[in-house]
């Protein structure tokens, strides 16, 4: 029997890219470009990314380690301001189990000649299913790591 639970979390990641907001935005707006960097780790087997980049449009991609569970990502675009902002909601399935539902906000801000990208994710994580990947990161110093994460959340 599944133990029902919900966990909520928010995090923010910031990156500076040395190219214009229009170029970073284009890497999100074009299916071919997005397939080059989105999706799972390089060694994963992946299905083709589908992207209907407009408000109300959907995006999906599946993938997973060879012989392992398949991660399914299904997104719905909620708000698009060209070169400035993308808001979407997405859910993740691990095989046939829904493991999380998230609100993802990506902002593209001019920073000198480049772009500051700010990605904020607010999620509910269902029934304690682990999202594979990144587990090995747990070996770093507990408090150092947590502090760094919280600084970015703050």
């Amino acid at each position, binding site marked *: 029997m599944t133990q029902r639970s919900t*966990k*909520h*979390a928010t*995090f923010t*990641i910031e*990156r500076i*890219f040395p*190219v214009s907001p229009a*170029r*970073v935005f284009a*890497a999100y707006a074009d299916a071919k*470009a997005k397939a*080059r*960097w*989105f*999706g*799972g*780790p390089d060694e994963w087997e992946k299905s083709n990314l589908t992207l209907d980049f407009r408000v109300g449009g959907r995006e999906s991609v599946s993938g997973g380690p060879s012989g392992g569970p398949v991660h399914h990502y299904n997104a719905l675009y909620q708000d698009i301001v060209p070169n400035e902002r993308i808001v979407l909601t997405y859910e993740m399935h691990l095989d046939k189990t829904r493991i999380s539902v998230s609100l993802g906000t990506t902002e593209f801000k001019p920073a000198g000649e480049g772009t500051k*990208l700010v*990605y904020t*994710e607010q*999620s509910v*994580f269902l029934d304690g299913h*682990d*999202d594979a*990947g*990144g*587990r090995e*990161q*747990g070996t770093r110093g*507990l*408090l150092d*790591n*947590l*502090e760094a*994460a*919280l600084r*970015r*959340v*703050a």
Partner: protein
Amino acid sequence: MQPVAPLDLTFQALADPTRRTMVERLSRGPASVSELAEPLAMTLSAVVQHLAVLEASGLVRSQKAGRVRTCRIEPKALQAAERWISERRASWEHRLDRLGAFLAETEPKPRRRRKT
């Protein structure tokens, strides 16, 4: 075995700089309430209130022996919070690494001006 505290409480507890200072102090070893209060510019009762939030979150446990209440960290709650954030973040950090590499690869060549 104690049930793991809900992550909401953990994050709420850690959202306050005073409580993070207390957690940092306790990560170096157990301390009494007055030792915890010493570096903080606030009343003992305010410190006790912060301590109550930390205890409710499961991050900290305290035990009274005679007149001294000794506080110590409960690593399990910290681990659960740390793991959840690091997993979600890690997958996004990797994606953005790949985005950076993709942007660098597809950098349009600067146009050469034709010499006249």
